[in-house]
């Protein structure tokens, strides 16, 4: 089922949590709502679920498969909702938690006792907790609780799955495991899913499409590749990962930022116009000897080799800090250490012309 919201505004005590937000989520996609805390992403999710009502406005709409659901109460929208802090029913065991949604159905639609048992057993297997049906929520680990919350939401066969910071309260390690589990689950079920997160890594890894939000508004919508490699403004670029920022000016068809001279983008920027050049750390070349690309002198301040890349922190002569991520094989011949003088420049860059200041 596709989801669409149009012109949604929401005000809490004079604070505008959402400002005229419109958004479409295609059927079957796994979409992330990504932004810093306070950006309104959770509020948007709750409005879609029907747990909050948007400010009264004639043009405000929440559409499921093109149908307005404003009149449908929260129980009639057939959404599955997973809360950040699980919200498991603390006085029911895992089995009863999962069965709850089926048991409260109106008499005619309610599955028979045996059907409920089969369904719950199946879901317990799906979340790899087949033996733990009799446990109470307090006897489960955080990761297990979150999986039970997911199974409970799936039990009523929702058309849409909404997840509010599903892994926010978990350890880094457990989070990474559950993340790929959620992705696999979505690939099996192919249900339209929308999840809220403030962790860009999570969004980039799991989602088909990312909605970057800031301050009650949508900044960019796109695939992980699009928002990461072609951000439309510096907020998005900065929020999605470390980025090196050069303030440049268009001079004679070229972009000039100190010692760096780069090709201006085709979308003809006017002479003298200011522009931001964004360079991801892995696109920053580091060389011992200056050349056309690596023209900016810098000094190594820190080398961290404990991940899939070697991270080199640098500082330019005018005090700007930069970060370069080199492949271990590319780093080995350079053999940089703290204090070394090097030259840097962008292998590839992305230019943004806007007035947003980090």
């Amino acid at each position: 089922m596709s989801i669409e919201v149009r012109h949604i505004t929401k005000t809490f005590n004079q604070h505008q949590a959402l400002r005229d937000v419109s958004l479409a989520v295609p059927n079957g996609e796994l979409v992330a709502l990504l932004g810093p805390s306070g950006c309104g992403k959770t509020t948007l999710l709750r409005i879609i679920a029907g747990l909050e009502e948007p400010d009264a406005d004639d043009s405000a709409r929440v559409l499921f498969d093109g149908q307005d659901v404003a009149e449908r109460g929260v129980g009639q929208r057939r959404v599955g909702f997973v809360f950040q802090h699980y919200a498991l029913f603390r006085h029911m065991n895992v089995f009863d938690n999962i069965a709850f949604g089926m048991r409260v159905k109106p008499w005619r639609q309610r599955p028979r006792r045996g059907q409920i048992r089969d369904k719950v057993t199946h879901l317990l297997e799906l979340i790899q907790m087949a033996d733990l049906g009799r446990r109470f929520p307090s006897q489960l680990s955080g990761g297990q609780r979150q999986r039970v919350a997911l199974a409970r939401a799936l039990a009523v066969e929702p058309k849409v799955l909404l997840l509010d910071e599903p892994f926010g309260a978990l350890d880094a390690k457990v989070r990474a495991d559950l993340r790929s589990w959620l992705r696999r689950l979505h690939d099996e079920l192919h249900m339209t899913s929308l999840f809220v997160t403030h962790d860009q890594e999570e969004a980039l890894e799991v989602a088909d499409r990312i909605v970057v939000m800031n301050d009650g508004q949508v900044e960019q919508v796109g695939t992980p590749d699009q928002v990461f490699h072609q951000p439309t403004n510096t907020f998005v670029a900065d929020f999605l990962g470390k980025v090196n920022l050069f303030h440049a000016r268009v001079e004679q068809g070229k972009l000039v930022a100190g010692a760096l001279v780069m090709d201006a983008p085709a979308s003809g920027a006017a002479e003298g116009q200011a522009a931001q050049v964004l360079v991801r750390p892995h696109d920053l070349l580091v060389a011992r000897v200056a050349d056309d690309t690596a023209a900016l002198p810098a000094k190594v301040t820190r080398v961290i080799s404990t991940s899939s890349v070697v991270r080199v922190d640098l500082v330019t002569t005018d005090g700007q800090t930069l970060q370069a991520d080199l492949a271990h094989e590319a780093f080995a011949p350079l053999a940089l250490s703290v204090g070394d003088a090097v030259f840097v420049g962008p292998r590839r860059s992305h230019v943004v012309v806007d007035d947003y200041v980090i």
Partner: protein
Amino acid sequence: MKRAGDPLWLRVLLIAVSTAFLGLFVLLPLIAVFAGALRDGLGVYLRALAEPEAWSAIKLTLLVAAIVVPANVFFGLAAAWTIARFRFVGRSLLTTLIDLPFAVSPVVSGLIYVLMFGLHGWFGPWLSAHNLKVIFAVPGVVLATLFVTFPFVARELIPLMEEQGSEEEEAALVLGAGGLRTFWSITLPNVRWALLYGVILCNARAMGEFGAVSVVSGHIRGRTNTLPLQVEILYNEYQFAAAFALASLLSLLALVTLVIKRLAERKVAREKRAGLSLEPSLEH
């Protein structure tokens, strides 16, 4: 949790002071009542309880509690749920007023019912015209007790409900449960122990109320005397053994109340812990 930062003498002193204070002013007196009741032997004790007037007082006390406690459970639950779950104009006034019966003297609580329903009160003429008696009759005793014991249920529930938040209820609503079903399946079970505690405290207080009831009851022997009133009458007539015999019933009620309270408190504490999410900070 033994805190290395506090000197040992301070901890010992504090624990000793608190315990001594409670022992001296709370536990010792309680023992005294039972000692006093049984001073003249078990036979006298049982005879005192079997007196017709004593029996009548016991029955009236049970009747009052049987009306007041369910009423206050209903109103207490409604008030607590309303306050913990909704934001509305007058919400804070409602919260404040719940404690009014604590703040006002029991004598005054009784007097206001006399003012309203007494012979010369606001509704007095109307009541006597319809041959209804409130003051110096059972309805007055019930109303006065209702007023005095109102805060106990609501006060136990409000903080717990606010702490638990409404996420579980929201989860139930999203799963398709109606408002009433959510209340019975989620809200009520989550506060059941705190509710039990509020109920037994309300009950103990309803059975033991003296001041307000004293003003409205008229002390009509065998008719409008509750247990506490009967105790005072016996005491004023120097029937000490009988007075203490009835008083021991009230003390027993207090002890049973505290034992149930103890159990309920443990359950509440356990449920609070159970509700906590596994945060790294909880590690030890």
